[in-house]
């Protein structure tokens, strides 16, 4: 009885991970990184447990300051934040580029971790059937 339940749970886990890997393969073409800023009077809203980002954005209290889109084929789209005088906002830009690097690094590691976990779960099921 316990074995069946365990086997079902592992199967569910493996199937879910396999779907994730599949969706990743479909979505891998683009990596997007968005950096927003918000006025100080919205800070308490953000600290609350469940801030409604859509409402905040619709009310104009969330400003997209930098955007990067990296395509699988290497094409990259950048939106660089500038100040009122037209100069680049170096503070926002610096942290945005750090985040882009972090996103690319994380994506690679995450795919490997999920792939390994799915392989491990599928391996367990395979053995169980033998």
């Amino acid at each position, binding site marked *: 009885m316990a074995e069946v*339940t365990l086997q079902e749970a*592992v199967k569910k*886990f493996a199937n879910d991970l396999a779907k994730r890997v599949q969706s990743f393969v479909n979505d891998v073409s683009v990596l997007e*990184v968005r950096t927003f800023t918000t*006025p100080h009077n919205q800070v308490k809203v*953000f*600290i609350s447990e469940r801030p409604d980002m859509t409402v905040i954005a619709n009310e104009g209290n969330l400003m997209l300051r930098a955007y990067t889109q990296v395509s699988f084929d290497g094409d990259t789209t950048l939106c660089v934040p500038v100040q009122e005088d037209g100069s680049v906002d170096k503070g926002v830009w610096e942290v945005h580029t750090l985040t882009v690097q*972090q996103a690319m690094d994380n994506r690679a590691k995450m795919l490997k971790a999920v792939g390994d976990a799915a392989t491990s*779960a599928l391996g367990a099921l395979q053995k169980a059937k033998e």
Partner: protein
Amino acid sequence: MAPSTSRFTLSGIALPEGEDPLGLWTLPEGSGVSFSAEASPVEPPTWHIELSSSAEEARQVLDAQTRALALGERDLVQAKDALKELGTTEAVSFATDDPLAAQKAALLETLQKGQEPVAYGVEPQAEAEQEEIYRQWLAFMEQTRELLSHYARIKTTSGETLIGITEVSWGGDFKTEWPADLPSASMQQHVQAVHLALGSRIALMRVFSVVGTGAAGLAVKATMPGAQILLLPATWKFVRDVLQELRKSWPQIQSLI
């Protein structure tokens, strides 16, 4: 050193015993009660990093937590290697100074019991413990799966001040919100916090892989058809116990957490 006012909290998932297997994050009280495999979190997994208003202390505690993550990853590799060693078909002997001797012996004992044709007279206490480990493993597997069903939210605060919020889809798209005119040093703190949170999420996935792969090796040793699936809970217990044991030898960085 005075007690730190910094806290690292993981909410939105219910890990077994209410504990992070890698010992990096505190789970809110009560989050480990439910072992229901069907339980789903109300909120997305949220890593909340509350930093001291002292910039120096915040830097120290973030560096300490970063070191702790690296140590946790190292320990996981050690657990994997120990399982590999136990999974060989050759006889295993433990050095007297092996810090994991007790955990290895316990796992081998479980393996030997599983090989006996009929298990008579299993003590009720032992049976209850096995049942508990079994439920813990199911819960861990379910919560690991849940980690991938939602985006990760990482929130860094200092007192009542928001430093940054980042949401990361499982595929890696990032969305970060910052208060306007935030100092560069604070932004760096949040970037480091995001690194910690995402590294921890990946480490939890690796715990699953180590358990699954380790159970496969043990099944070969046990020469039992279908043993791998049955050995998953016992292997989970081994990995959990090994991580706990190895954490005892960490430098005093835990006092900062």
